[in-house]
């Protein structure tokens, strides 16, 4: 199939191409309580093709992409390719250059066995410290072994293998006939059993607390501490606004060498893009477009350092030496956990869906479980919502020195935002 496709591409009137040939063997197990709802096997191959065509005397470069089903006949393949080339000739984008040939040195990672990771996860779930008041409702296990072959017209030809997994767990807690649930979704590459176990045990502890929670009072402007994966959207705000696509489109006005936020009493943010982040389900030595991935500062001490993103937009932003980064490490925090958790604050450990709008900076989320620390008292609260804007909240953001990793992001374990608006669900007494 690939040989035929290559022959057709080389014989075509085009100026560049990329082929991504991805084969996946997936094992899936769905559990209701600890009983098997369904087991599934996936054995699939996806071949994506992108073609480039110079237009208007080379001042424009058109491109179009599509998937070639592995069952296509040669005649069907030829017809689809012609359609793609025709489509590319309609796309009059400003000219840019393609990634040069990349050569990966070192040994290709060996395939992992989905059976091994599946067994680890099934065993982990069956050994959780469940109690009468908190237990596992259901779980879904997805274990993929992905082999990716990447070829380009510039001479890159690389094959990589990587595990990619996902685990969804729903935890129930009950008290006096009332039951609630907590939802957890983990994405990862290599399986870190202990990290998963620790986080699930934490969820089993949170559950009963939510049953005793009282309505969140209206606090107006208050400090909020994030100590779970809900902190990720906060750092995504910084990462996305440094994406060359956002810069070129005018959605972000952050300029290299200039501060990304006003600096108040908060900690300066440093973000590094890294090619390989152990445990991440994405990334690698080559980005999805064939550029070599390496460690690259994106923001240093709250100063914009380097745009990341696709080749096309990096060219437009006149910064071709980066790559389409997927893994990031956030640092800059120097405070202990105790320093972050001092004074009056609301630590929110469960949102229904915490979001940060990358364009406007607006934050929003409904509080499902929080610990309100006021004076010497701690109340467990639920309901109400948070709102505000990172455009102003970034100024006084504080971060812990201690870090944790959530799939492709390693971030400070604790993040504290000052002056978040808390809409309670009852008036403060």
């Amino acid at each position: 199939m690939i040989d035929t496709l290559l022959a057709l591409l080389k014989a075509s009137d085009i100026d560049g191409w990329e082929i991504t040939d991805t084969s996946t063997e997936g094992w899936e197990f769905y559990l209701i309580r600890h009983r098997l709802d369904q087991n599934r096997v996936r054995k699939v191959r996806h071949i994506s093709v992108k073609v480039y065509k110079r237009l208007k005397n080379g001042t424009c470069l058109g491109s179009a992409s599509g998937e070639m089903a592995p069952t296509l006949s040669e005649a069907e393949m030829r017809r689809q390719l012609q359609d793609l080339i025709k489509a590319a000739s309609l796309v009059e984008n400003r000219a840019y250059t393609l990634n040069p040939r990349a050569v990966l040195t070192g040994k290709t990672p060996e395939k992992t066995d989905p059976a091994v990771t599946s067994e680890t996860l099934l065993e982990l779930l069956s050994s959780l410290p469940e109690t009468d008041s908190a237990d596992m409702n259901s779980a879904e296990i997805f274990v993929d072994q992905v082999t990716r072959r990447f070829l380009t017209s510039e001479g890159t030809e690389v094959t990589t293998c990587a595990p990619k997994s996902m685990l969804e767990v729903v935890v129930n807690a009950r008290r006096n006939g009332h039951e609630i649930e907590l939802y957890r979704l983990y994405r990862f590459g290599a399986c870190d059993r202990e990290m998963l176990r620790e986080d699930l045990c934490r969820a089993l502890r949170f559950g009963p607390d939510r049953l005793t929670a009282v309505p969140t009072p209206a606090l107006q402007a208050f400090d909020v501490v994030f100590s779970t994966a809900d902190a990720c959207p906060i750092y995504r705000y910084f990462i996305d606004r440094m994406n060359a696509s956002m810069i070129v489109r005018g959605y972000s006005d952050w300029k290299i060498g200039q501060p990304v936020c006003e600096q108040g009493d908060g900690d300066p943010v440093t973000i590094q893009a890294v090619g390989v982040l152990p445990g991440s389900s994405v990334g690698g030595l080559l980005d999805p477009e064939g550029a070599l991935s390496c460690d690259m500062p994106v923001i240093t001490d709250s100063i914009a350092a380097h745009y990341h993103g696709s080749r096309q937009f990096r060219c437009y932003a006149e910064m071709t030496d980066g790559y389409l980064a997927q893994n990031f490490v956030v640092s800059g925090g120097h405070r202990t956990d105790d320093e972050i958790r001092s004074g009056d604050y609301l630590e929110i450990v469960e949102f229904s869906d915490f979001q940060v709008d990358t364009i406007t900076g607006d934050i929003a989320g409904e509080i499902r479980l929080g610990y309100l620390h006021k004076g010497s008292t701690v109340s467990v609260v639920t309901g109400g919502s948070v709102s505000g804007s990172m455009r102003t909240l970034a100024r006084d953001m504080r971060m812990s020195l201690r870090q944790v990793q959530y799939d492709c992001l390693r971030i400070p374990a604790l993040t504290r935002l000052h002056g978040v608006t808390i809409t309670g669900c009852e008036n403060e007494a």
Partner: protein
Amino acid sequence: MQAPFSPYLRSIAGGMRQLMERFYQDFDDVRILCTDSVGFAARVSRQVTTLSHETMTTERGMVVRVWKNGRYSEAAFNCFDPQDPDRTYAEILPVLQAQFLLLEKTGTPTYETGHAEDTPCQLYTEMETGRLPEDEDLSALLQSLKSISQKGLSMDPHLVDVQISAQSTHVCKMFLTRNRDMRQSYVYSEGAISCVGSLNGRMEMSYQGVSGRKGPELFAALDDLLPQVVKIVQELLTSERITPGEYDIITSPEVTGLIAHEAFGHGVEMDMFVKHRALGAEYIGQRVGSDLVSMHEGALCATDVTSYAFDDEGTLAGDVTEIDHGILRTGICDALSALRLGCAPTGNGKRQNFEHKVYTRMTNTIFDSGTSTFEEMIRSIDYGFYLCGMQSGMEDPKHWGIQCIVERAYEIRNGQLTGKVMSPIVLTGYVPDLLSSISMVSRDREVFGNGGCGKGHKEWVKVADGGPYLKAKARLG
């Protein structure tokens, strides 16, 4: 014209039936879904144009569901050779057997379930469409999208970008069992305008779309949408923050749809009943809203992006009355959950694509219309807000909490819109409280099919929702 059924699926039907018989050597029930959906996605913005032959639902592949001794298993694949079904069988069976061994080794018991009758059904549906995505003149389409984008940019110097997107998919699915041969072909399309504006360092975006079970002819409606989107961005750029609190509200049909989706859409997906994850199971036959609240769900309820003839388990499309004058009547159900609950499936078994498991999923989720007019509803409010523009939502079926992030709120004072705009708005509350507070319902209604819906934070499928204007009380922040 009628959307023609896939020649590829027709060509593999015989081979698939042979594969089915191979699996019958090892299992007691075998059902197969095959898909072949093509389309395009075009996007034009100030700086770049993109064109792809892939959309959210383009795919070509197969999934076999097998049953034996109370256990359900599935295998998804896409390298099938109809001349050599034994090869696929030889590749898949050992992996399933390895999984069975692992389940035995880890002592994982099975949620034993029977299998449904294989009721005979022959169905061949080629639905009406204006044009086909595969035949579309993309050159003319791109020119049209560019023209709208440029026109938008010329309307206000504060606009940073006006991005126009258009995607159209020709869906073909074939469901086979020993007694069934069901085939459907239809086209759906969706287009949208995203405007981004900047003023005094503040940046805002608005998004409005059109959708339908139509071909690319739908995109002609985008031009008419443009002035409305530009106006909204202008309003957002000078909008204020709302003072948190509980207010009288009127929801636009789009926000009504978001509430329908988050409140009693997810809340009555009956695979959640099987897992005891939905409070709704305990409230069937009980009051969950005011007398004015009636809600329907089903692929037959409206003609939009997910109005199919049969679902991904071969169940014919339905129309379910979920809430009837405030009383919760029933939920929606996929075939496997129906077996476990002892009820009939409703035609809501959907997969993200052939690679994914079936879950109970929404199709068209719609509040019924009432008798009021929008003007009467505005006049009835002393102080409150008219909520417009849907951004996102999240459900909590176990606790009946709701979160809706709404784009903007227009202030109402003494029965009149004051012109003051607040944004963004986080609407939160307890679903029965919100639905019980509904005191007026308008006589018109609209349905919206842009965007996708996840189950938890994954499994994205197309859905549509909507309804009339509603007057209610809600907590806004």
